[in-house]
């Protein structure tokens, strides 16, 4: 079932503006550190693993698997919040969209789909691959 939940616009910061600008153009960026080679989430200029400033934006594959989720039964419409582990490594908070909330979803393969927000850039969400 589709969720038509009204999503509040994200509030970009100076160090994340590029992410949201890319999202408007349908590109899903993550942050990678050239010093230690790791990608992290959420993106930040200083690597949270090795503290190097040598980080850069890279386009992610948009592929991942569901680490965990919950169905917000209290909301109307019902929506699914989830942690998805990206193919590149890090796990991120997101929504699962166009999924049946009554079937088990942990471990399922998912792919990126941007979802519009109220007057802001779209946000990265996922649906079954």
């Amino acid at each position: 079932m589709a969720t038509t939940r009204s999503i509040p616009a994200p509030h970009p910061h100076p160090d994340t503006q590029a992410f949201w600008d890319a999202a408007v153009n349908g590109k899903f960026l993550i942050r990678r550190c050239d010093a230690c080679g790791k990608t992290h989430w959420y993106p930040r200029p200083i690597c949270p693993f090795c503290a190097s400033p040598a980080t850069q934006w890279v386009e992610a594959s948009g592929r991942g698997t569901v680490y965990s989720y919950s169905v917000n039964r209290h909301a109307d419409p019902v929506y699914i919040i989830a942690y998805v582990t990206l193919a590149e490594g890090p796990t991120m908070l997101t929504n699962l969209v166009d999924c049946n909330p009554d079937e088990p979803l942990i471990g399922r393969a998912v792919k990126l789909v941007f979802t519009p927000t109220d007057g802001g850039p779209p946000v990265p969400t996922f649906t079954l691959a």
Partner: protein
Amino acid sequence: MTIKNQAYIVGAFEHPTRKAADKSVAQLHAEVAIGALTDAGLAKSDVDGYFCAGDAPGTGPLSMVDYLNLKVRHLDSTDIGGASYLLHVAHAAEAIAAGRCNVALITLAGRPRSEGVATGTAPRVRNPNEPDVQWESPFGLTVVNGYAMAAMRHMYQFGTTSEQLAWIKVAASHHAQHNPRAMLRNVVTVADVVNSPMVADPLHRLDCCVISDGGGALVVVRPEIAKILKRPRVKVRGAGEASKHQQGGDIDLTYSGAVISGPAAFAEAGVKPSDIKYASIYDSFTITVLIQIEDLGFCAKGQGGRFVSDGNLIAGVGRLPFNTDGGGLCNNHPANRGGMTKVIEAVRQLRSEAHPAVQVKNCDLALAHGTGGMLSTRHGSATLILER
């Protein structure tokens, strides 16, 4: 430096209210402060250290020391959410050991029930400068669904069931029936819990704590002062604190910061989990209790569901009597922060002042533990080991 045996809890007070429509938050803080000082046999003018957290209105401790007209030489408003007050006891002991104060007052109060706060089911209003808010708010993260994701993963990874989680509520309700002030006094069954409405899968309505007004306060003093007071002395024997967060995206929802704070507290106290006679365990949700019990070493990781089943947390029945006041799950959760009442019930147990129906016999060693913030994103953990 150790805080072992350096400080005593000599005053503890839980506000009797569960709904304070006619009182201000500051007034509630003042009422619990006076309550705890009276319990200790001390005066407001004896206080030279003050501790509070984000529930106190104003900039850190400043408005409250003004309102209470305290003249203090040590201040601490470290805020790790609902676990702050457990951490404050440890910080008070540190300050006392370092000679920074002699009589530390810790207060908590709030009125989310009167203010109609949709505590668990609506996203919190947050400061947009928080670095994580843009990555969380659009997705509808709430308190309940945040904890629910930890429960869902625990079930997937370890086979934990809703029925096992329900036993935690069942145990709390067995205790709450003896507490005339508890919001939920009816004894419930596993079936009652799993048949209550689903809020955020897999957490049902009865997997959640109550929303209440109220508060509590503690007085912590140096040993020389404790010895001249009349109340039974509760010694701070060990403490630990930690934070756990998203770790750059290296997320594992199956454990909490208690894996750090628990062993640190046990090491300082020189005791082990099997020595603990009574445990106050933070109970925002049933899953919170289960994960912390594992992390604190009362059972192996993944075995929490089995451990909490069949009444093992019920006083007089099970191996680990917990939250004998009914806890946040049934009694109260003042200001949406359960850490203060965790310490207070542990103090009651060690003083042999719990309700006779739930008083643990020969209770000379207790643990109090809290998780503040959000289990599945970032939280603070604080563990105390207290001795009669």
